């Protein structure tokens, strides 16, 4: 059993991961939302599958990627999106809009109750009010907005997004859109003839011109609303919305095949004809496969990436590995330790797949925004921790890997709420060389700092609260922490200086005292202090641990805290919501430092086993005596 247990755990976990790779089943009598979900569109400057648009939009509007209907049924993002696109009357009844702020509810004369989701129909009498209030809030800087103002602005933006989606592929009031398009196409040649007659000064049929003019006006309105650019036209990123393409048809006289296909499948969905919908979807998908081969390959992959959801899977595996590794200190050491290690390797593989997929999809180095920095910090820390585990084989590296992997992925999960995490980069960031060197080095430095802090936490918690911190464990923890701090120093320093060089290249100053720069240099200074204090003999084991925990505080300030100040060039990821969490984290670290500052006799692991007379502090490790003069402090 002892030999097979770790393998058994690995096989179960691998099977669980593999299950998500199976393609989703489509029954014959259902709408084929899988094929439809892979269809590429251009939103936010990037070609992405409709599935991603659905997930991100629902996340922005609803805060979640699934939607629970009043009848208890849960529907996916794609289902919600097709209803919004083609059956807007039905979608208007869905309780998607989140309102929790009591002042916003009060604006509509509603009391705060346990309901927090509202439908478009319920909100429609207040649209004008919401728009006015939102406009006022929009004029302020995000730092200056009150909770009410942020809430009303979010609501307004969610409503606008929803309205734009509804009018993306067809006017929301259209019933038989393909028929409408045929009428339009048929009216164009006579109108063109009438127009040329008018130019020449001949007699012309005004009714013919007017019939097309009405269409043009309708599509002009539509094009100002459209959110999706669904029709590729020409090379590269020259995409148009359905409405723009229809307006162009006035000149060419031809309606783009993509527009026709969307109209037909939309009509089919509108009346519940799944056969036609599936046929037209396949046609559309075939057209893209032929005409936009590269984009389609990428969107199909992105669909798979969304579907596999690697980060959620590795998050679960990290927790499991952490628990198993902690369990190994209590008993059944070898098998549990080994099982934890295998779980971590699997989890790291899934994590790496996710990271690499994002790099492929974005064609960028791994870190481009706050979200991806969390993913990368976790990944880097897990790798270093696993190397430590290989060297020391005592479960400590494994526990650290599990904990940091889990925490960073949770942080990433909460950072994803603002929509597309693969967003396009601001002009100044549009340089792969610096993203690949400066940003990667800095974030690797963060990883190492958090890992050192985690090791220190294990030292203190095990030392104070349990008797499991033996001398050799304490020594190896100390060595690990020291090594990781050295590693952090190297990367933080190089990263900071590379950042300076980037700044010198782009703005002409090596150092500008920007908050993020200051945050980075704080880490470097703190590392330098730790190393010098240790070399100078001012601190020993316990001091090193306490200082490593301060390192956690400094690093979290540098990673998140400076962004909350809302000043400077790096304030790209302003996160007001994260503030209480940051404060909570810092308080917890201070508490841990206070615990560590307790006299050593109070530490469970260092209590004297023999009742030595008080006054003669003969401190000993619980299990193993130390030679005189080598107290761990």
């Amino acid at each position, binding site marked *: 059993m002892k030999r097979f247990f770790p393998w058994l755990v690995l096989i179960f976990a691998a099977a669980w991961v593999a299950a998500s790779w199976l393609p989703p089943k489509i029954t014959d009598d259902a709408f084929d939302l899988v094929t439809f979900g892979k269809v590429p569109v251009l939103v936010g400057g990037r070609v992405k599958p409709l599935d991603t648009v659905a997930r991100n939009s629902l996340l922005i509007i609803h805060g979640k990627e699934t939607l629970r209907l009043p009848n208890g049924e849960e529907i996916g993002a794609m289902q919600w999106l097709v209803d919004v696109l083609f059956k807007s009357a039905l979608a208007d009844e869905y309780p998607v809009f989140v309102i929790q702020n009591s002042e916003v509810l009060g604006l509509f004369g509603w009391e705060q109750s346990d309901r927090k989701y509202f439908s478009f129909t319920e909100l429609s009498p207040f649209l004008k009010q919401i728009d006015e209030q939102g406009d006022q809030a929009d004029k302020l800087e995000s730092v200056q907005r009150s909770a009410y103002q942020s809430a009303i602005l979010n609501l307004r933006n969610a409503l606008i997004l929803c309205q734009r989606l509804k009018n993306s592929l067809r006017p929301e009031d259209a019933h038989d859109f393909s028929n409408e398009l045929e009428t339009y196409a048929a009216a164009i040649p006579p109108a063109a003839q009438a127009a040329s007659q008018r130019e020449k000064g001949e007699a012309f049929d005004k009714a013919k011109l007017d019939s097309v003019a009405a269409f043009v006006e309708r599509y002009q309105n539509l094009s100002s609303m459209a959110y999706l650019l669904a029709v590729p036209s020409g090379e590269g990123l020259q995409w148009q919305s359905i409405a723009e393409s229809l307006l162009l048809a006035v000149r060419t006289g031809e309606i783009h095949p993509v527009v026709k296909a969307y109209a037909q499948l939309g009509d089919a969905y509108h009346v519940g004809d799944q056969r036609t919908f599936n046929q037209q979807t396949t046609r559309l998908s075939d057209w893209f496969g032929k005409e936009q081969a590269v984009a389609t390959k990428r969107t199909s992959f992105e669909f798979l990436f969304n579907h596999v959801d690697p980060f959620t899977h590795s998050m679960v595996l990290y927790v499991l590995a952490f628990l198993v590794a902690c369990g190994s200190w209590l008993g059944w050491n070898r098998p549990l330790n080994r099982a934890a290690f295998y779980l971590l390797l699997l989890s790291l593989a899934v994590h790496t797949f996710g990271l690499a997929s994002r790099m492929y999809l974005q064609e960028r180095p791994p870190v481009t925004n706050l979200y991806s920095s969390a993913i990368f910090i976790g990944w880097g820390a897990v790798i270093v921790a696993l190397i430590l585990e290989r*060297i020391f084989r005592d479960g400590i590296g494994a526990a650290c890997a599990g904990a940091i992997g889990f925490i960073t992925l949770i942080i990433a999960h909460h950072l994803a709420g603002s929509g597309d995490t693969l*967003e396009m980069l601001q002009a100044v960031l549009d340089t792969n060389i610096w993203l690949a060197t400066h940003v990667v080095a800095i974030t690797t430095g963060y990883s190492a700092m958090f890992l050192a802090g985690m090791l220190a936490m294990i030292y203190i918690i095990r030392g104070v609260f349990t008797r499991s911190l033996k001398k050799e464990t304490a020594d190896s923890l100390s060595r690990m922490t020291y090594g990781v701090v050295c590693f952090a120093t190297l990367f933080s320093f190089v990263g900071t200086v590379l950042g300076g060089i980037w700044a010198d290249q782009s703005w002409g100053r090596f150092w500008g*005292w920007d908050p993020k720069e200051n945050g980075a240099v704080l880490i470097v200074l703190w590392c330098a202090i730790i190393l010098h*204090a240790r070399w100078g003999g001012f601190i020993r084991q316990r001091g090193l641990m306490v200082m490593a925990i301060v390192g956690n505080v400094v690093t979290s300030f540098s990673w998140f805290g400076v962004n909350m100040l809302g000043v*400077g060039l790096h304030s790209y990821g302003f996160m007001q919501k994260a503030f209480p969490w940051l404060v909570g984290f810092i308080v917890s670290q201070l508490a841990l430092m206070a615990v560590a500052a307790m006299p050593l006799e109070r530490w469970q692991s260092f209590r004297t086993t023999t009742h030595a007379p008080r006054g003669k502090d003969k401190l000993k490790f619980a299990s193993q005596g130390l030679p005189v003069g080598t107290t761990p402090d």
Partner: protein
Amino acid sequence: MLRKLIAIITSLKLTIICLAAAMVLIFAGTIAQVHLGIWEAQQRYFQGFFVWWPAEGRGFRVPVFPGGHLIGAVLLVNLVAAHAKRFQWAWRKFGIHLIHAGLIIMLAGGLFTDLFAIESHMRLTQGDTRNYSEDPRRMELAVIDTSNPEFDQVTAIPEALLRRGGSIEHKSLPFRLVVRHFYQNSRLHMVNESGVTLQPIANQGPGAQVVVESVPRATGVNDRDLVSAAVEIIPAKSASLGTWLVSDALGAPQTFSNGDRTWQLVMRPARYYKPYSVTLQKFTHERYVGTEIPKNFASKVTLIDPEKNVNRNVLVYMNHPLRYRGETYYQAGFEKDDRTSILQVVRNPSFIAPYIACIVVAAGLLVQFGYHLVGFSRRRRAVIA
């Protein structure tokens, strides 16, 4: 005594104290940026020998904390002294020496940059040609002799001299300027505006119809001070010509005559003249399709330098500055209509120092940690075997 002093200067404790003080200073300086803005916080915390309290005013001020220059200087002395005293050649120490040599270069370079680098702006609307850049943070009072039809003779009086007040004389001016009032930041109102109780401080030019209200210094990131002053012009051989209001808020230059010459008087951002000119041909601002996210900013400029026989077109865009005659031009900003481009102009004679320092330190870190890692794994292998 001397030995004791040397011991202190070269001690590791001093290093740690300096590093800790630097952390406190940087932390405080970063938090202060929320209210003061980056530029002001930088002045108060990092670019001085002390942080003063209260930060403003001429009255009694106490230094509450060492400033950036003091900490940097002490650290520099400490580093150099410690290495001079304890230097010994050994492979084991080679990495450490490299790291610290690099740090010395970096600190010294930083100090040098702080003292000698000049940052200014050049703001060009399409078609504009300029042979100077401006410093929007510092004003100057330009006194221009326009009587020669061939050229204007400009005498520029820096803001600092005006702030000091008193009488200003210069050999190119046949009169003295006496600063009667000086406002670091001000708002101007018309005298007849309702609710105005102040009296005009000038009696000549449009300034005689205007009153000046003193307001606290601007702290926002994008705000800046509107400097105003009242100067009396007193020719050497005749009576006073009167007092003029000069202000950043008054646009056009004011004219007066003294004897047979005509002069102009204007408060404007300090100018740095160049021996060459830059013309903006076209400014482009690209966005990603279907979004407002900027993709690129680019200025196509023509550089004309008669001295060096240069006449060429250059594209200045994100991460690709123009370097010419010791100055570097960066695409820094633009105005809303997408026709005006703002270029940042930097002259930094010590820009190379951080590059050298970075290479030296990185090499040192690699040598040092590499040396330890090899030793560690050797010991480890020995233990396992």
